[in-house]
């Protein structure tokens, strides 16, 4: 156990160096892409072709296979962003700052996907594109938080200052997330009865939750791929004065 911990710490510190991160990600990226494509591909086939339709909602139920993974990622991306931001702020680790910066647009994209697919799903299911229940409102606020962080980052010229300021904003937003969830639930239960549940049956049969599990895994792998892609760009941008980046640029052919 101690050895495992020592190993983790060692790789954590090494990954803190942008060059190491870049080299390691060059090696692993093809594998990660392959795994994501396989998982998402297989998941999509299962979701669209083989999963049974819901006896009440019909075929629109298939939207769940996109909506739930996206929503889950939207939240996880924020937490990862906040965590990296905190690490970057406290320990001044460059790589943590880069990861935090990069999580924002990706998290915002997944929040957008969750909101849009939710609205499209809602139209035939609830009869309305939008409903101000706890979940949807919290997701919308999350989207605004992401936008605020991205705008703040873009508005500050100095890289270090931008990283530190957005870190503080991200951390303040973390406090806001449970507050939003709580206050909206409170507000809702007083004025509306319990909201419509996505799944009428509490336990889904296996042929329904299996594609969901695969899509979740696929989406999470996809998230890692997207983070690495953007992080690599950031690294090249920030380290452009260093020798290893110059050698890298000169060595590789136009892709």
């Amino acid at each position, binding site marked *: 156990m101690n050895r495992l911990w020592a190993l983790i710490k060692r790789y954590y510190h090494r990954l803190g160096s942008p060059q190491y991160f870049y080299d390691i990600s060059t090696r692993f990226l093809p594998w990660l892409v392959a795994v994501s494509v396989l998982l998402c591909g297989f998941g*999509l086939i299962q979701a*669209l*072709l*083989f*999963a*049974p*339709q819901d006896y009440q909602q*019909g*075929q*629109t139920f*298939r*939207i769940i296979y*996109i*909506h739930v993974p*996206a929503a889950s990622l939207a939240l996880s991306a924020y937490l990862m962003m906040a965590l990296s931001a905190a690490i970057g702020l406290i320990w001044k680790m460059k790589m943590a700052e880069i990861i935090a910066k990069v999580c924002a*647009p*990706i998290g915002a*994209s997944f929040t*957008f*996907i969750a909101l*849009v*697919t939710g609205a*499209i*799903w809602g*139209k*035939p299911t609830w009869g309305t594109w939008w409903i101000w229940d706890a979940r949807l409102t919290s997701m919308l606020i999350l989207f605004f938080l992401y936008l605020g962080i991205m705008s703040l980052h873009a508005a500050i010229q100095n890289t270090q200052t931008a990283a530190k300021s957005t870190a503080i904003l991200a951390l303040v937003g973390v406090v806001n997330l449970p507050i939003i969830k709580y206050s909206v639930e409170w507000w809702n239960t007083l004025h509306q009865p319990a909201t419509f549940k996505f799944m009428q049956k509490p336990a889904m049969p296996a042929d329904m939750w299996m594609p969901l599990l695969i899509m979740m895994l696929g989406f999470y792998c*996809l998230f890692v791929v*997207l983070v690495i*892609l*953007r992080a*690599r*760009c950031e690294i*090249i*941008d920030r380290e*452009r004065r260093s020798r290893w*980046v*110059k050698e890298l*640029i*000169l060595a*590789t052919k*136009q*892709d």
Partner: protein
Amino acid sequence: MQFSSFSELIQMGGQGIFVWSSYGITLLVIAINVLSPLLRRRALRKEIKHSINREVRQHESNS
């Protein structure tokens, strides 16, 4: 297979537009998230190459 024909797959019992627009928008957003860093990378490479060449030329003209 839940659907016996391709047209059935597209129709999805009349709810095809909802399902396919969801999946379509998702695909679009993910594609943008994949292409954007790749395009940026290409632009960065060009930029840095230019600045390296400029440096080399400056160095040569100085020495």
